[in-house]
């Protein structure tokens, strides 16, 4: 049995490196994520689902001719602006189902796993711990959002190469909708989940459930109800973080009315091609979506300031 006396080492380990603390916390949290098999299964599952949804949308649908009731079949490319407005809110729901499980427990996981005391007795500053955990979760969330972008682009090009009349993805439109809808939603849900769970660690499960239920209601239930009756109010179209109502408000500009000049499916498809990649109207909703994401960062700041290393609970 040999005992190594720590103080005999040449360089004392008490030398504390101060520079990249935030980067250290982030890097190790990312390593922990990457070492988790569950995370990769979730990411691959999400990638597969968004590929499937983009592919499924090129299935032909019927467009009735108003004047004589004749129907022609055509398809709206899932990677066009029109197609994206139909699919993005749905894919976002799936993305949002994953996000709280990635970000919300950034800090509270240590409490539930009882690793909190080990970390809080290190010289790691509180700000580096909280922001490092948040940013690591945000990076993983944005990674999933990028995966969504990649799946749409990849499937779009695949369909363009293999399906007649399928247009190549217009990268500008796609990026615009991704930045205006997916990016703010990702930042908003990640920040909101992290901040609320950090502020209310005992209620972190409830926080996740509330976020998921609220998002499903906002993205699917309300649009289904409103879509069948009156058009949504303009403020709601602009400020809806789920983009469900935003898409509902934008879609009418893509509707086509088949006049008597359209006499066959080929003509219909050409008509769709001229409409589906029209640049979406950004006025009104784009800036509010980014603003909502920015506000959620302020909530993270509040959570970081309110975080206490010492606590009378969670012993």
């Amino acid at each position, binding site marked *: *049995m*040999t*005992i*190594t*006396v*720590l*103080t005999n*080492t040449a*360089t*004392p*380990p*008490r*030398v*504390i*490196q*101060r520079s990249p*603390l935030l980067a*250290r*916390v982030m890097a*190790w949290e990312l*390593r*922990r994520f990457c*070492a*988790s098999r569950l995370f990769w299964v979730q990411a691959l599952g999400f990638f597969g689902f968004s590929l499937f949804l983009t592919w499924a949308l090129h299935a032909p649908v019927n467009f009735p001719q108003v004047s004589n009731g004749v129907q022609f079949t055509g398809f709206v490319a899932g990677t066009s602006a029109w197609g994206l407005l139909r699919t993005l809110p749905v894919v976002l729901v799936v993305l949002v189902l994953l996000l709280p499980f990635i970000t919300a427990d950034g800090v509270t996981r*240590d409490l539930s*796993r*009882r*690793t909190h*005391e*080990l*970390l*809080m*007795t*290190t*010289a*790691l*500053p509180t700000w580096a711990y909280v922001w490092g955990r948040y940013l690591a979760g945000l990076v993983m969330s944005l990674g999933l959002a990028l995966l969504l972008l990649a799946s749409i682009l990849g499937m779009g090009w695949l369909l363009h190469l293999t399906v007649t009349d399928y247009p190549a993805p217009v990268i500008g439109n796609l990026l615009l909708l991704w930045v205006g809808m997916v990016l703010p939603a990702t930042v908003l849900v990640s920040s909101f989940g992290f901040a609320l769970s950090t502020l209310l660690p005992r209620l972190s499960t409830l926080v996740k459930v509330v976020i998921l239920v609220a998002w499903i209601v906002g993205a699917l239930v309300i649009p289904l109800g409103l879509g069948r009756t009156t058009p949504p109010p303009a403020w709601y179209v602009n400020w809806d973080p789920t983009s469900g109502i935003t898409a509902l408000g934008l879609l009418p500009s893509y509707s086509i009315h088949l006049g008597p000049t359209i006499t066959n499916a080929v003509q219909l498809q050409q008509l769709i091609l001229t409409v589906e990649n029209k640049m979406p109207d950004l006025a009104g909703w784009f800036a509010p979506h980014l603003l909502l994401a920015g506000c959620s960062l302020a909530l993270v700041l509040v959570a970081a300031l309110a975080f206490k*290393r*010492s*606590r*009378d609970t969670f*012993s």
Partner: protein
Amino acid sequence: MMELTIERLSKRYGQHFALRELSLRCEPGMLGLVGPNGAGKTTLMRMIATLLEPTEGNIRWNGQDIRTHGQALRQVLGYLPQDFGIYPEFTGRQFLCYLAAMKGLPGSLVNRRVDEVLSIVNLEQEADRKLPTYSGGMKQRIGIAQALLNDPELLIVDEPTAGLDPAERVRFRTLLASLTSNRIILLSTHIISDVEAVASRLIILQQGRVLSDTTPEALLARSAGSVWSVTTDQITAMQLQASYQVSTMVNQMHGITLRIVSPTCPHEAAVEVSPSLEEAYLLTTGWQAVRV
């Protein structure tokens, strides 16, 4: 000169005092903290480790209040909680590297330090296994290893030998003994023999107060003449057990041999014997503590 000073420290949960006006002054060396369950040992350690806020009083590290200078203390602190969790995604080595990084060890030192502490706790062979595959004892050794990563000036270990097999316990005691020269070590334990082997100072806590601040030798000396041995039949043994504090009871061929802790001779056949530290502890804490 490193110094830990605790002044009139209290911790209250509602109307219940976990610690009450506790004062201590610690200099380099090993301080054994013993006491019955609920005596306040873990509360005291968690307050020193800056994990709990005192209700009253203060704790000073080298003269600085740790409530305002907690970071200075944490830079030189090694802490092994009584019960701690792990990251199941990590191997033992990754877990230690992670905590070394969080403790602020320079990147160039991390691997070497991790290898050293793995060697100290005898886990080099299992270092690359995932943590969930570790036994309770191996997990405890990883906990000890992480507490040593930053070569702490103040080492707080709460029940460190719980879950270790006898050989590992002896090894850990030897390790602690080798570390005492230039640091303050606070060792909380229920296993009195651990304290006896390594601690130069013994604090007995009871109901949140210091019952005794002494040395193992002084405690033993104080208990001389208060431990008795008697071999008797089963019925008498049962009667003695009901009336006195029995520290050991061994069934033998010719009867039952009891060791009894009592200031007075418990039986006409009883003979005075040298007390063990455990018996001296029982004598100090009294019958009440044993029943807790």
